[in-house]
């Protein structure tokens, strides 16, 4: 290897249709033998102009689009958008609706992490964990389907609450699933955690130091695997996360293996949160799921926002177009991949003036060249897979 001249460097193209990139990511790599010398990620293949689309749609028309930003964790995008709009319009979400949001979000987090686990191990060449992970993911997706009517694009939250009550028997089934879930996680750990092949391929590979991670804006499980306790559910609680007792899962080394460990631990914590949320679920009638009247807090008589009946917004008969007051708000949500923020600027009309999405995977792709520099080409997938990048979220 040492005797090679610079002329023998080779530029190869990974993607955009590479099966392990979970979407369309193109990497232009310069290899020296098998050593990766330089990487240039090319993104944008899935750019749909989410931010531009928002400017031509009313708030309620944009709501279903939001799911598509990250299809594996749509509840978090919805929550991010809803919390931002609610912050502008000063809408207080009813307690029961908040609990329903937390329960669905945590189920979504588990489903997303399971999907990550399956695809990560598939990238490493292990086929059988896929079937184990999809078995539970199917049960979660089934639950969410019964609740929302969709398997991936839920469109379930609305400004000021959630759209539906739990169907009968849903809570019981959710609890049963929560009871089963830790045993399932034990099963994966029995297969994976001490597996010598996994250990060899992931331990000490792709080490993300805390300084580098923060410099690159890495958040979520990736930065927690480097030992930084940055979990918005704990450090800056939104929604009703204050009510629950859970711990922030961290690891020390920041390598691919630690990112795996953190995600498995996080799924266990999510199960605990769901169980507590169901136990504490405030009772209520359907009227406690959504605010009835909007109140922007301006205390003016002629305000067009105050007193708006939410039941009529966007309905076919006598529709009212939702019009939050002028202002700006940002909402920060701890999504399965990191911190998702939605920044909304309203100018008091029916359409947002500017919507900006900050998605965690965007930063994860940016840090990839640093992590794989000087490693073997075979280490690309153990590193890239462990970052849990979802490409639609990168391109928006």
């Amino acid at each position, binding site marked *: 290897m040492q005797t090679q001249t610079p002329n023998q460097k080779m530029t190869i193209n990974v993607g955009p249709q590479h099966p392990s990139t979970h979407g369309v990511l193109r990497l232009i790599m310069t290899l020296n033998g098998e050593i990766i010398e330089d990487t240039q990620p090319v993104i*944008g293949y899935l750019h749909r102009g989410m931010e531009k689309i928002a400017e031509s749609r009313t708030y309620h028309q944009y709501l279903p689009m939001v799911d598509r930003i990250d299809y594996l964790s749509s509840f978090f995008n919805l929550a991010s958008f809803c919390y931002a709009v609610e912050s502008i319009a000063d809408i207080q979400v009813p307690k029961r609706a908040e609990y329903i949001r937390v329960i669905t979000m945590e189920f979504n987090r588990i489903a997303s992490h399971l999907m990550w686990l399956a695809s990560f191990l598939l990238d490493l060449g292990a086929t059988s964990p896929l079937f184990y992970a999809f078995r539970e993911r199917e049960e979660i997706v089934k639950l969410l389907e019964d609740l929302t009517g969709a398997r991936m694009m839920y469109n379930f939250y609305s400004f000021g609450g959630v759209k539906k009550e739990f169907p009968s028997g849903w809570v019981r089934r959710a609890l049963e699933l929560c009871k089963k879930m830790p045993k399932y996680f034990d099963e994966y750990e029995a297969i994976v955690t001490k597996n010598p092949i996994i250990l060899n391929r992931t331990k000490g590979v792709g080490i993300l130091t805390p300084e580098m991670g923060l410099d690159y804006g890495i958040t979520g499980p990736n930065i927690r695997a480097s030992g930084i306790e940055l979990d918005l559910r704990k450090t800056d609680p939104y929604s009703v996360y204050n009510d629950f007792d859970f711990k922030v899962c961290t690891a020390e080394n920041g390598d691919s293996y630690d990112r795996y460990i953190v995600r498995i631990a996080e799924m266990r914590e999510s199960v605990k949160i769901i169980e507590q949320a169901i136990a504490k679920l405030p009772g209520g009638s359907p009227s406690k799921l959504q605010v009835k009247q909007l109140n922007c807090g301006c205390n003016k008589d002629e305000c067009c926002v105050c007193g708006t009946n939410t039941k009529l917004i966007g309905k076919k008969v006598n529709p009212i177009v939702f019009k939050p007051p002028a202002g700006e708000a940002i909402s920060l949500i701890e999504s399965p991949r990191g911190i998702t923020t939605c*920044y909304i600027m309203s100018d008091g009309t029916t359409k947002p003036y500017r919507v900006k999405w900050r998605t965690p995977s965007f930063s994860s792709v940016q840090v990839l060249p640093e992590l794989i520099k000087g490693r073997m080409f075979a280490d690309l997938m153990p590193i890239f897979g462990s970052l849990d990048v979802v490409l639609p979220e990168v391109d928006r």
Partner: protein
Amino acid sequence: MSELEQNKTTNDAGTTPGIFCSLLIDKGYKASPLKNSKDGTEIIQVQPENLVDVATLLKMHKEAQFILLYSITGVDYPDKFELIYHLQSVKLNKKLILKSHIDKNNPEIDSLAQVFATANWHERETYDLLGIKFNNHPDLSRILLPNDWKGHPLRKDYVMDDERLVWNER
């Protein structure tokens, strides 16, 4: 927090700048406090020419340590461009928003890529979608749109009848 707390008490009399705004004013930068956001986050307006110094100061300050830059947002107003920087201090668990206004006809601002590595791509995105030029940026090229795209879609005067919106073999 000793130095920060001290600054707060000395400056409370005026237009009530927050602790970080007073820190900047004390160091001699032109910073003006804006109304806090609803969750109590301090918003500071800084001059574009001071931005890199201010960001460096906030990042390197031994008590504040705003080492995490969430996002860079550009907004197209009728008379100006506004750039919004969301910062987070992991140590203090505090957020901070910096705003900077730049000229509409000549949208240029210094790049933060030397201060925060994450700014590199966020600035490229802002350049791509809004056409704001970042001086001293290591590689200011389009990131989300193809290289031959014309115009910057998030500008309010962008016309959406581009022939590129029709699918063609590229």
